[in-house]
């Protein structure tokens, strides 16, 4: 889907209803850069919701300053709707109240403006009954998932009355500007994700109670083996709030046909109601199925409820054999496991998958829509039909039959075939008519996964590959563990630098499909080499990394970084050396090397100094760039979004922010192509740094932090080394320090720190626990 050329842009949006969903939808609209009006019936509710969101974690705003884009108001003055392009209703799920509201709103809608409902349960058909014929073409359902900033799913429902241009205008906006993956749904109760998700949750709880399965065991066997987040079922219910469940279950009980399998699950267990009555509503209350108990000595103990007795006991983190079986041989082994846990997993997943298969054609255009909805709305790693492919539709059908369970028609029709298969390098999907057809990516989306199916890499090793993504642009992909940096990754960058120009490539994009762009350098090597006192080797690795990153800046073609998720340490340093960045809005980046006892050593100090030196927004004199870089590195600051990364100058003002993760690679490629037309390599600069006086100033600040107890002794040692690097060593501020000079200081500082037992302890602790040691 592309942005319609003749479609007027969405510049101003009104959200009616300042509850949790309405307010956080408003916040995400503000993230997208539009002006938002947030209205509520209660005086002051909208303003108070904005203030509350500024303190909420995870933050609804991508930058606190975006809160100013929202104008709060009340329903007493609807004139603010007059010039809005889109009005989103997010009020109580009562048809009569919604109809009443529509009657108030519609007279204020300008021609072409669209009204949509964020309902999660009410059918479009019923909602439209409250609208006059002239407004029906401009009405649709846009169902966001909570929290709207982070959940990528947007379910949409339109009718035959909906004006296609009006609907496309909203869909295009939600795709490009809000970063949503749009899943069109049929007008059925709960649409797709909640219809299946609620069944799954309810089934898992009732079966656990019925079969006497412990909460932790249920979560262990339903999470990792099924590709579900480690919160599992009970942890997820604690997160969303137990008190919501009775409302949701009531709503489905009323809305669904009596022959729907949902009814066979029965009512919610009595324990759930008791827990809610006692204030155990989940993480927002006193706890839920899990709770954090603080003992008299202050120790925090995670406890879990016994579903039979209702008593809490310390959590044990069990690892049932049925779950381990999946690790060895896949989900099917879990489902066929003879243990009680295996039988529990079968009962929950067989009912859920059967339910999804029996409903699919009723609720969606194709099974991919169902899978996408569950992946994006419930964070499942694989959707129901991908899970069916994993266990095999033939095996599943046979197993159902052996248990005297009906086999859904869709499974029978698949007749042992997979729902997804690759044909001629293109992913195809089994349609409801029993034939395969290609899955079409939305226009403007480039998928590295698709490219990898169709061709061999230009070069590759165990940690990185280089792909031809067309039009003379190559893509460097990391695929080491957690996309960490090691000499193999560096060697692939060097290969790209030397070989791609010879092969006629015009630019390089650094991108991968992983959860995170890169978590940094592989610090195991640092630990080993420092324990063996191989200082020369450490110095060589540092110089090799610095030279490699330096080549990216000075090479003959532009290099565009396309980060997403975490880009930490070395992952941030490589970005700092890209000629441009197109970052996904959810990019969390920073130079966090202090956490493992060192300073950035692959040019991170140098590049941040350079950027602050060249910044026109900083005060004059030699100290401000040094202080800015020092603050960022010593405090191991990590941006909470790409917009915050701009404040830190990891992203420059001219770098781009892409809201839709699926469009990141295409945008980075486009940027590389644009830059290749008139590309000028990086020009090294000479910097006036303050020398020992600057180091003294920073050391005084470090002393204050030590006195306050917010820095540990080794924090102080690292910060002092960092101060020395950033101040330019022994220079005088009338002299200049070259970029190479700062790089040498980086290397010297790391060697000095690597010789300390405290730094080695930090590295070892990080490798063992994944958490920083505060020694």
């Amino acid at each position, binding site marked *: 889907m592309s942005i319609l050329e003749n479609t007027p842009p969405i510049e101003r949006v009104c959200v009616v209803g300042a509850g949790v969903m309405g307010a956080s939808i408003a916040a995400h609209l503000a993230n997208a850069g539009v002006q938002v009006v947030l209205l509520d019936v209660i005086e002051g509710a909208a303003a108070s919701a904005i203030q509350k969101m500024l303190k909420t974690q995870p933050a609804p705003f991508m930058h606190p300053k975006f809160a100013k884009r929202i104008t709060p108001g009340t329903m007493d003055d609807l004139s603010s709707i007059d010039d809005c392009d889109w009005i989103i209703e997010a009020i109580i799920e009562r048809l009569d109240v919604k109809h009443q509201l529509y009657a108030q709103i519609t007279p204020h809608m300008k021609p072409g403006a669209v009204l949509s409902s964020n309902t999660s349960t009410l059918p479009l058909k019923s909602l439209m009954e409250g609208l006059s014929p002239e407004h029906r073409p401009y009405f649709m359902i846009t169902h966001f998932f909570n929290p709207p900033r982070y959940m990528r799913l947007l379910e949409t429902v339109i009718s035959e009355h909906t004006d296609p241009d009006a609907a496309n205008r909203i869909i295009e906006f939600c795709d490009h500007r809000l970063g949503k993956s749009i899943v069109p749904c049929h007008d059925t109760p709960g649409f797709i994700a909640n219809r299946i998700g609620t069944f799954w949750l309810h089934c898992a709880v009732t079966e656990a109670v019925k079969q006497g399965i412990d909460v932790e065991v249920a979560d262990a066997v339903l999470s990792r083996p099924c590709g579900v987040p480690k919160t599992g079922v009970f942890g997820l219910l604690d997160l969303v709030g137990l008190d919501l469940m009775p409302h949701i279950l009531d709503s489905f009980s009323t809305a669904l046909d009596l022959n729907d399998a949902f009814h066979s699950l029965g009512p919610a267990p009595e324990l759930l109601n008791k827990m809610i009555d006692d204030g155990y509503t989940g993480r927002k209350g006193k706890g839920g199925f899990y709770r954090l108990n603080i003992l008299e000595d202050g120790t925090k103990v995670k406890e879990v409820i016994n579903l039979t007795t209702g008593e809490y006991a310390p959590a044990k983190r069990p690892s049932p054999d049925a779950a381990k079986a999946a690790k060895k041989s896949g989900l099917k082994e879990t489902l066929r496991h003879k243990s009680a846990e295996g039988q529990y997993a079968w009962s929950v997943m067989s009912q859920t998958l059967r339910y999804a298969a029996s409903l699919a054609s009723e609720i969606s255009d194709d099974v991919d829509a169902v899978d996408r909805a569950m992946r994006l709305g419930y964070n499942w790693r694989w959707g129901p039909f991908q899970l069916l492919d994993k266990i095999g539709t033939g095996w599943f059908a046979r197993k159902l039959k052996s248990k005297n369970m009906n086999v859904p028609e869709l499974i029978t029709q698949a007749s042992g075939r997979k729902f997804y298969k690759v044909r001629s390098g293109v992913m195809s999907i089994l349609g409801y008519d029993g034939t395969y057809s290609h899955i079409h990516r939305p226009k403007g989306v480039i998928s590295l996964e698709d490219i990898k199916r169709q061709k061999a890499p230009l070069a590759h090793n165990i940690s990185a590959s280089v792909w031809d993504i067309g039009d003379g642009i190559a893509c460097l992909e990391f695929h080491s563990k957690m996309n960490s940096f090691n000499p193999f990754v560096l060697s692939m960058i060097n290969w790209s630098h030397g070989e791609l120009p010879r092969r006629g490539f015009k630019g390089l994009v650094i991108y991968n499909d992983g959860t995170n762009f890169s978590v940094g350098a592989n610090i195991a090597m640092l630990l080993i080499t420092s324990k063996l006192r191989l200082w020369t080797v450490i110095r060589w690795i540092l110089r090799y990394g610095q030279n490699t990153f330096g080549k990216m800046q000075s090479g003959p073609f532009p290099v565009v970084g396309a980060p997403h998720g975490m880009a930490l340490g070395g992952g941030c340093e490589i970005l700092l050396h890209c000629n441009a960045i197109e970052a996904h809005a959810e990019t969390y980046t920073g130079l966090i090397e202090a956490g493992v006892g060192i300073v950035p050593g692959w040019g991170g100090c140098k590049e941040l100094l350079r950027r602050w030196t060249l910044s026109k927004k900083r*005060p*004059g*004199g*030699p*100290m*401000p760039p040094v202080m800015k870089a020092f603050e960022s590195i010593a405090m191991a600051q990590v941006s909470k979004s790409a917009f915050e990364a701009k404040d830190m100058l990891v992203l420059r003002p001219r770098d781009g922010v892409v809201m839709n993760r699926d469009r990141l690679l295409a945008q980075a490629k486009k940027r590389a192509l644009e830059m290749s037309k008139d590309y000028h390599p990086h020009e090294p600069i000479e910097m006036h740094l*303050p020398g*020992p*006086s*600057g*180091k*003294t*100033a920073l*050391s*005084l600040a470090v*002393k*204050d932090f030590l*006195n*306050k*107890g917010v820095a540990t002794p080794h924090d102080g040692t690292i910060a002092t080394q960092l101060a020395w690097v950033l101040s330019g060593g022994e220079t005088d*501020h009338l002299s200049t320090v070259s970029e190479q000079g700062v790089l040498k200081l980086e290397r010297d500082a790391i060697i000095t720190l690597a010789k300390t037992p405290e730094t080695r302890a930090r590295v070892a602790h990080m490798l063992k626990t994944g958490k920083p040691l505060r020694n």
Partner: protein
Amino acid sequence: MTSPQIPIVISGYVRSPFTLAHKGDLAHTRPDDIAAQVIRGLIRQSHTDPALIEDLIMGCAFPEGEQGFNVARLVGFLADLPLKVAGVTVNRFCGSSMQAIHMAAGAMQMGAGEAYICAGVESMSRIPMTGFNPMPHPQLAEDMPGSYMGMGETAENVAKKYKISRADQDAFALTSQTKAAQAQSEGRLAQEIVSIQTADGVVESDGCIRPETTAEALAGLKPAFDQNGTVTAGTASPLTDGASATLVTTEAFAERQGLKPLAYVRSFAVSGCQPEIMGIGPVRSSQKALERAGIGIEDLDVIELNEAFAAQSLASIRDLKLNPELINIDGGAIALGHPLGATGARITGKAAEILHRQGGKWALATQCIGGGQGIATVLEGVS
């Protein structure tokens, strides 16, 4: 006693509202704009002919950035003072604008003019406390750590050396807040405040005072400068934005111009002390100033002692044997705020104003200064 040959009087005193740095209402306003509006307010309220002013002496602790160049001269331009009125910026850190008064009084004793505006300004939002380019002398910093020591650490040193307990500091801070809140609610601060026009509207009242402060809340605060210390954010003056100004003239000038002097400037003094315990600075400077005025502590009716920290205030009070009843009766810096360069003129003007209001005979205004100094001024009431 060494009486001035030419009687010098404080003929006017005003200030801007004092608001919290970074989050207060003046944070987004340039300090020179704040100061210029205060100077205009002083001219307006005192009904002075600005053409008769000899000089604008302006104190500023970090005279750089927007309060850089020669900010006094630039503020003169912004305030539409006649071009013939000169301008000089003076820096004695927290004592800067009290120093401005001393310089004016001294100059007038030399016959160098008859009327001075002695002012002070500091935006701690817009110019950081160490300035934009702190570059301490490395060897001095190593040999004499006190020379660049943070003020919070010096307060902890004073608390330890003079055995000022956490409870006493909290009680002192609570009293400061209570007095300031009461003065504000009774309108005792309104007269001295000049409203400041900002891009976001007019700022009319102080923003630092916390009338809701309780002993329990203060007791619950963690130490702010030393994890094992006793000084908290509640017992330290907050980072503040603001400006102040006094009109300092000869008595003869005031009479000729029909001004209403608030008090005579009878003596003043500065002194040095160990920088590690700079908070004790008021002791020696006050003793010197009182001696020069020929009076003793027991003669004082009004005392304005700058509350940089509760610890150093209490140590100074104890050493000087000051009567707590007479100190900072309209609240001190812990409650009102402490825009470094502006505080000296505020407490001197305030001492004069209270003396005038209450009809007392002698007043002392004194403060400590970073780097290990004290400064003091003795005023005499106008009968």
